[in-house]
């Protein structure tokens, strides 16, 4: 089933300088999609379009076959429940004045989801391997990795179909990073992920499909395994060659 479909999408913050050019891509339920590119490649802008924070200049985005119309409030409420996001910095994405319970309950309340809020929050905490007593504590009491778990709990509490993860592990240490990746892998059995990152190894670990962005254009897309085994575009080849490896494999 097609979740998101972009055809001929272009976007610019100003009329004269487009940031994205002619983006065609499809997100299918069950197939995690990785979007790889370096700073300035347009990956954050693409992400904003995907979560409905910006409107396309030309082209169209469809969600489950319906046009993504950011002015249609009823449609957007359903869209927001289906599509959630997790961001890079777990220190700035959590409100320091709210208890973890209220942080995680926020999507349920703002989207007016008809469910037992307390039970849903507890289940979300359990899903991300945080203890139940975390609910009454504040974000500053947690480590970076635990905060990222709280942000993930908030994203999954409304049972979305799609989660957009923007550089979710880049601020974390290597060992913590590995644990969060394991968690995302477990969760991706239940929902689809779009993983945006400059780290091609992370995307390789999580995503079946891969899109490589350079200067606002898709230069290569397809099955991750195929692209890694036989990168066609020179930029993809350069990205792979630049990724430092351990000596003596």
């Amino acid at each position, binding site marked *: 089933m097609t979740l998101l479909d972009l055809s001929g999408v272009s976007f610019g913050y100003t009329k004269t300088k487009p940031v994205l050019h002619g983006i065609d891509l499809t997100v299918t339920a069950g197939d995690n999609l990785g979007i790889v590119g*370096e*700073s300035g490649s347009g990956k954050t802008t693409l992400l904003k379009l995907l979560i409905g924070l910006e409107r396309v200049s030309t082209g169209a985005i469809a969600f489950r076959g319906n046009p993504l119309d950011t002015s249609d409030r009823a449609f957007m409420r359903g869209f927001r429940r289906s599509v959630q996001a997790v961001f890079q910095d777990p220190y700035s994405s959590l409100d320091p004045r709210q208890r973890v319970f209220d942080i995680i309950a926020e999507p349920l309340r703002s989207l007016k989801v008809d469910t037992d809020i307390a039970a849903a929050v507890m289940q979300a905490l359990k899903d991300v391997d945080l203890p139940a007593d975390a609910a009454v504590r504040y974000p500053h009491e947690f480590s*970076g990795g635990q905060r990222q778990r709280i942000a993930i709990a908030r994203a999954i509490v409304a049972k979305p179909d799609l989660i957009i993860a923007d550089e979710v592990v880049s601020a974390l*240490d*290597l*060992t*913590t*990073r*590995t644990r969060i990746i394991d968690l995302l892998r477990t969760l991706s059995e239940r929902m689809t992920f779009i993983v945006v990152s*400059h*780290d*091609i*190894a*992370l995307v*390789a*670990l999580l995503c079946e499909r891969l899109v490589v962005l350079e200067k606002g254009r898709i230069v290569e897309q397809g099955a*991750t*395994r*195929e692209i*890694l*085994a*036989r990168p066609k575009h020179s930029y993809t080849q*350069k*990205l*792979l*060659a*630049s*990724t*430092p*490896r*351990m*000596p*003596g*494999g």
Partner: protein
Amino acid sequence: MSALLSVENLDIRAAGRTLVSGVSFSIGAGERVGLIGESGSGKSLTALAVLGLLPDTMRVGGSIRLDGHQVIGARDRDLVPLRGVSIAAVFQEPITALDPLMRIGDQVGEVVRRRALRDGERPGKAEVRRRVLALLDRVALPEPERIARAYPHGVSGGQRQRAAIAMALACRPKLLIADEPTTALDVTTQAEVLKLLEGLVRDEGMGLLFISHDLPVVATIAERALVMRHGELIEAGLVGPLFQHPAHPYTQGLVAAARAFDKALETTL
């Protein structure tokens, strides 16, 4: 020959807590050493201690001998002559390391002028400018004239880090401390900066203390590596054997995690 840097039993304490304890290592002239650790392991504190830049609120014990001088307990005015000549540093975030209100050429020029004064020279404006452009060219910055005129915000992150490296090079230090110098950069830029740094350190015969949490990055630039955890040095050795047969369980975990990322990229159809 005695070591360029010799750290013995370094202890750092603040507010009754031990942050670094019993750390000993040495770096010889021209040797490239990696210092590996995760956040809170004490690796950056160790680097600051070597530079004599720890805040006064921290209590430091042990011995740090840099180029024949004791750093611990030394007065700041006795350390000033060492900085630049014996030691220089490049930090993670070039946007905060550079003065936003000063043109890049002027910032590098200031270092060039100060270093020349130490050698008893008084280069004129044209000579300073010539040396600045040579340095910017040395760190492979394109169009050195344009970069010299630019302010830090006007160039890319990789170019800023190259400018910071040019400033460290202008000092011609015997030991260069690089604290996560490529962490804020894109992978392709990181590869270029690492290659540049390695070549420069090798050509100039500088010692290098390269601090990073990224094992493959350390492997590309260092001959020897130290692993820190919770303020203690838990393992040290040549990079090859260390990453091939890590002895400490923590190092084994780090190596396994790094290899898992490598493996993800080595897909064969």
